[in-house]
């Protein structure tokens, strides 16, 4: 029965390698492409993230239905409303301002982007600052707004899992329709040639 619970070096390296390989191929090592999502001219970030969420969520559900995956065996983050909201807002602000999130900054660094290297230095400083403030308010803030009834929307609110998956799939279709409309209306997705300032990109402008 799955999961296998391989927690070692090889498992980490292999999963991470595939993750980084896909993110770079999606164009997510480029701060220009990533921030174009917030300019609403390139919806790749929304499209890729939501597609991946739906594929993985549906896959986990099917594996459980088929009896291959143990129920409740995968890690689910604790439902802490205040911590997730404050953290989400700060990471979103950092993404819009700095051009990356923690994972994509590693991809940018590996693609030779110096702004990503500086972003990584910022990550280390921000983490150090957090550690310094942890015993001075952070611990208390993070424990606020805990959902007692469960950590997933299925457990806490009793929404059937197939319905949640259907809602996610509907949101995915909506993102592709809305995103496609914005992309056709604006200048469209950022291409690799544009990011690298290749001659073709300059000619296309």
């Amino acid at each position: 029965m799955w999961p296998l619970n391989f927690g070692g070096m090889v498992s980490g390296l292999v999963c991470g390698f595939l993750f980084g390989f896909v993110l770079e191929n999606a164009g997510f090592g480029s701060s220009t492409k990533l921030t174009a999502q917030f300019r609403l001219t390139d919806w790749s970030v929304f499209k890729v993230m939501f597609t991946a969420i739906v594929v993985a969520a549906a896959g986990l559900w099917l594996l459980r239905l088929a009896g291959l995956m143990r129920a409740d065996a995968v890690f689910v983050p604790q439902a802490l409303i205040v911590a997730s909201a404050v953290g989400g807002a700060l990471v979103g602000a950092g993404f819009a301002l700095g051009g990356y999130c923690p994972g994509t900054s590693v991809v940018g660094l590996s693609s030779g982007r110096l702004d990503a290297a500086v972003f990584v230095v910022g990550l280390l400083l921000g983490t150090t600052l957090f550690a310094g403030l942890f015993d001075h308010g952070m611990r208390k803030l993070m424990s606020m707004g805990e959902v007692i009834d469960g950590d997933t929307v299925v457990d806490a609110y009793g929404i059937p899992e197939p319905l949640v998956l259907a809602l996610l799939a509907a949101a995915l279709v909506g993102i592709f329709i809305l995103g496609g409309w914005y992309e056709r209306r604006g200048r469209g997705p950022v291409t690799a040639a544009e990011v690298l300032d290749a001659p073709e990109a300059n000619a296309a402008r």
Partner: protein
Amino acid sequence: MSTASSGQGSPVRPFWSPVTAGVVLGLVLLLTFVVSGHGLGASGAFSHLVAWGAQLTTPEAAKGNGYLGPMLAEGHALDSWITWEVLGVGLGAAVAAFMAGRFKVQVEGCRTIGRTSRLVRALAGGMLAGFGARVSAGCTSGLGLSGAAVLSISAFVFLVLFFATGLLVHRFARGE
């Protein structure tokens, strides 16, 4: 959209379509759940790195710190899955970038605001994201992506606030 040439003459391959990238990413995430019992992540490795650095420079303070102390007691950074996973991310991205002719040493996004401003913003953005990812105990990949795949309440709250604030801050910080 066809292949273009970079300055060095190596062919630049286009990015994957969002559907391709999204489906493959979803399958990689699913594989990660099957193999490890949890999802993908990123920011956790930086916490381990900070804890390690603090232990080397100010061991007493690191041990007494409410956040870093317990993490150090759990074990070394190199004993944790997430450290190796993030090293893997760096390797995988480098291989992809080299294979597609997309590796280039450059400061991105400095065309309109200049190099110094761009790097100051990258530093400030990194600090905000680093701090924020600790408050929510996860970042866009660890909590947003992997958490949403297991239908976690925290993940959905994180994603809504992440995108709303990102849109808002982008409006105020225009000029890339």
